[in-house]
C-alpha cells in the first residue's frame, strides 16, 4: 500500500543496510497493511508485537553492522509450520488452540537469519485443497479480480493465505508447503513466484505432516531473486528429519546470471490437456519463444505416464494422510470431544474436529491401505510412481529443464467446483508429477488471462538443481515483464 510494502525483499535488504529506513518502520508498514487487508482473510494469527520485538533486535544489529542475511525482513509463515509459543492451527478445528512448544526447523532457520515474523497465514485444512476453501477459518481471498467484476476469486491452495499476502503486499515473502502443487498453484493464481525445492532440501521437522513422501516446504515471493534469497535460508540439512538431504546448496542469488544460452528445455507433449482454455496453450507457446530467444534449445520430450500421475497421487496422498492424521485422537493435544467411552470419544473428536475434505481423504486412505485392497491400490500406485520417476530421469538425460503451464486455468470464483472434488483435484494436474518424482519446480508469473487474471508457467529441474531452475525462471520473468498489480491494491478487498 506504500513504498515500504511495495518494494522487493532484495530492495528492502539494501534499504535497511543503507539506513534509508529502520526494520521497525518496515515492520510497522506491513502491520498496518495487514490490518487494512483483513478482508482478504490471509492471516489466521497476526503477531504484531512479536514482529516489532524482532525488528527492534534487527535494528540493533544493523546499527552494529552485524546484519544477518535476512536481517529485518518481515515474513509470513504458513500456519502449518510450528512456531514456539504461537498458535499453530493447520487450518483445522482440531488444532484450533494448539500452541507448539517447539519451532519448525525452516522457521528457526529464518529467525536465525534475522527475519521478522508478521503472522501465520491461512491455508486449506491440513493443506488438503487447491482453493483455500477448506480452511476452518474461512477462505482466504485472491487480491486479483476479473477486470470489471468484483466476484471474489480463490487464491489457490493450499498455501492460499501466503500467496494472497505476498500478492497484496502484506509481507516481503512467505513460506508455503507443496504436496501436490500447494505452493506453485496459488503462486500462479495470485501472480507471484512460488517454488517447491527438491524433496529433502528443506527439513520437514515441525511442519504438520500431511503426506510425508510428497511434502516439501518452499518460498512464495514477488520476484525470482527474492525466491532465491528466501530459499537460501530456509534450506539445509537437519538431523531431525531423516529424509533431509545433506547436499550442499550453491549461492542461489549468484547463479541468477541471466545467461541461459545452450540450456536444453523439454516440452512434455502429454501436458497438453483437452478442455484447457486456449490462452493456457498460447502462454505456453509464448514461454517457449521467450526461452528460445534467450538462447535455450527447445525440444519435445515424452512423459507418457503423466496421465497416470493424478490417479496415483490421489491414492498415495490420502494413504499417507490417513496414517499421519491418526495421531489426532483427542488424548494428548488438540480438540477432545467427550463420548460415552474411548471409541466414542475418538469418533466424536474426529467427526467434529475434521472438516469434509479431511474426512474424505482419511476414508479413502484407510480404504486403499486396508487388507485385501493394499496391493490393488497402494502398491500399484507406488509402482506407477516409480514409472513416472524413471521417465523423468530419462527426460533429464536429454534436457536440463522442462517447461509446462502451472495450472489448467486462472483463479476460479469462490464457491465454484465445491460440489465436485474431482474437478477441484484437477487443478493440480501440472504440478503433481514433480511431487511424485521429488523434483524442484517453480511457477513464474508469465501473463494475464483475457479476464485480467494472472497465469503462471512452470519450470521443473533435476534433483538438487534449484540453481538452474531459478536462473531460467528469472529469464522468463524478465521476458514477461509484468507490470500489472492486483486490483485490491487500488480499491480494497472484493466483496
Amino acid at each position: 500500500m506504500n513504498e515500504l510494502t511495495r518494494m522487493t525483499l532484495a530492495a528492502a535488504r539494501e534499504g535497511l543496510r543503507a539506513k534509508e529506513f529502520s526494520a521497525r518502520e518496515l515492520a510497522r508498514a506491513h502491520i498496518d497493511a495487514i490490518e487494512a487487508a483483513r478482508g482478504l482473510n490471509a492471516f489466521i494469527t497476526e503477531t504484531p508485537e512479536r514482529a516489532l520485538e524482532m525488528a527492534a533486535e534487527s535494528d540493533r544489529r544493523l546499527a552494529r553492522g552485524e546484519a544477518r542475511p535476512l536481517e529485518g525482513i518481515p515474513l509470513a509463515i504458513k500456519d502449518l509450520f510450528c512456531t514456539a509459543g504461537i498458535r499453530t492451527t493447520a487450518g483445522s478445528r482440531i488444532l484450533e488452540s494448539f500452541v507448539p512448544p517447539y519451532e519448525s526447523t525452516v522457521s528457526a532457520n529464518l529467525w536465525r537469519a534475522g527475519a521478522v515474523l508478521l503472522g501465520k497465514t491461512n491455508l486449506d485444512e491440513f493443506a488438503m485443497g487447491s482453493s483455500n476453501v477448506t480452511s476452518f477459518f474461512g477462505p482466504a481471498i485472491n487480491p486479483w479480480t476479473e477486470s470489471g467484476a468484483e466476484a471474489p476469486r480463490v487464491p489457490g491452495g493450499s498455501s492460499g493465505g501466503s500467496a494472497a499476502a505476498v500478492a497484496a503486499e502484506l509481507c516481503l515473502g512467505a513460506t508455503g508447503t507443496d504436496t501436490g502443487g500447494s505452493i506453485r498453484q496459488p503462486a500462479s493464481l495470485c501472480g507471484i513466484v512460488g517454488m517447491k525445492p527438491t524433496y529433502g532440501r528443506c527439513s520437514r521437522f515441525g511442519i504438520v505432516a500431511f503426506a510425508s513422501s510428497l511434502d516439501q516446504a518452499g518460498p512464495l515471493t514477488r520476484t525470482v531473486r527474492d525466491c532465491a534469497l528466501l530459499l537460501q535460508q530456509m534450506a539445509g540439512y537437519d538431523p531431525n528429519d531423516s529424509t533431509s538431504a545433506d547436499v550442499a546448496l550453491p549461492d542461489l542469488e549468484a547463479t541468477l546470471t541471466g545467461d541461459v544460452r545452450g540450456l536444453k528445455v523439454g516440452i512434455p507433449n502429454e501436458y497438453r490437456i483437452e478442455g484447457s482454455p486456449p490462452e493456457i496453450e498460447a502462454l505456453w507457446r509464448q514461454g517457449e519463444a521467450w526461452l528460445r530467444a534467450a538462447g535455450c534449445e527447445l525440444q519435445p520430450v515424452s512423459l507418457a505416464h503423466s496421465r497416470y500421475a493424478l490417479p496415483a497421487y490421489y491414492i498415495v496422498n490420502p494413504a499417507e494422510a490417513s496414517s499421519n492424521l491418526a495421531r489426532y485422537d483427542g488424548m494428548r493435544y488438540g480438540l477432545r470431544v467427550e463420548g460415552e467411552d474411548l471409541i466414542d470419544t475418538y469418533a466424536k473428536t474426529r467427526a467434529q474436529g475434521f472438516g469434509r475434505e479431511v474426512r474424505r481423504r482419511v476414508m479413502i486412505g484407510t480404504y486403499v491401505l486396508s487388507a485385501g485392497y493394499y496391493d490393488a491400490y497402494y502398491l500399484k500406485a507406488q509402482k506407477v510412481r516409480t514409472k513416472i520417476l524413471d521417465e523423468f530421469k530419462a527426460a533429464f538425460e536429454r534436457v536440463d529443464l522442462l517447461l509446462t503451464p502451472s495450472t489448467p486455468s486462472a483463479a476460479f470464483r469462490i464457491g465454484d467446483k465445491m460440489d465436485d472434488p474431482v474437478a477441484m483435484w484437477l487443478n493440480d494436474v501440472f504440478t503433481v508429477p514433480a511431487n511424485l518424482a521429488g523434483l524442484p519446480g517453480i511457477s513464474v508469473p508469465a501473463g494475464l488471462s483475457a479476464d485480467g487474471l494472472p497465469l503462471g508457467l512452470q519450470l521443473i529441474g533435476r534433483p538438487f538443481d534449484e540453481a538452474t531452475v531459478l536462473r531460467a525462471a528469472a529469464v522468463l520473468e524478465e521476458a514477461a515483464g509484468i507490470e500489472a498489480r492486483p486490483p485490491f491494491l487500488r480499491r480494497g478487498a472484493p466483496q
Partner: protein
Amino acid sequence: MTSVIAMRLPWREDRVTDGGRPEDILGNAPERQDDYFVVPKVVE
C-alpha cells in the same frame, strides 16, 4: 519405491537425545493430572 531421492537413510547412535520436559509435552493436553494425560477409562 522407498524414496524418490536416491539416498540412504542416515544412522545414528541409539541413545536418548531429548526429553525431561513434561511441561512441554503436557502443555496442550485436553486433560492432565500431575505429569499424566487423563484419558477415558479403557478397562472394565
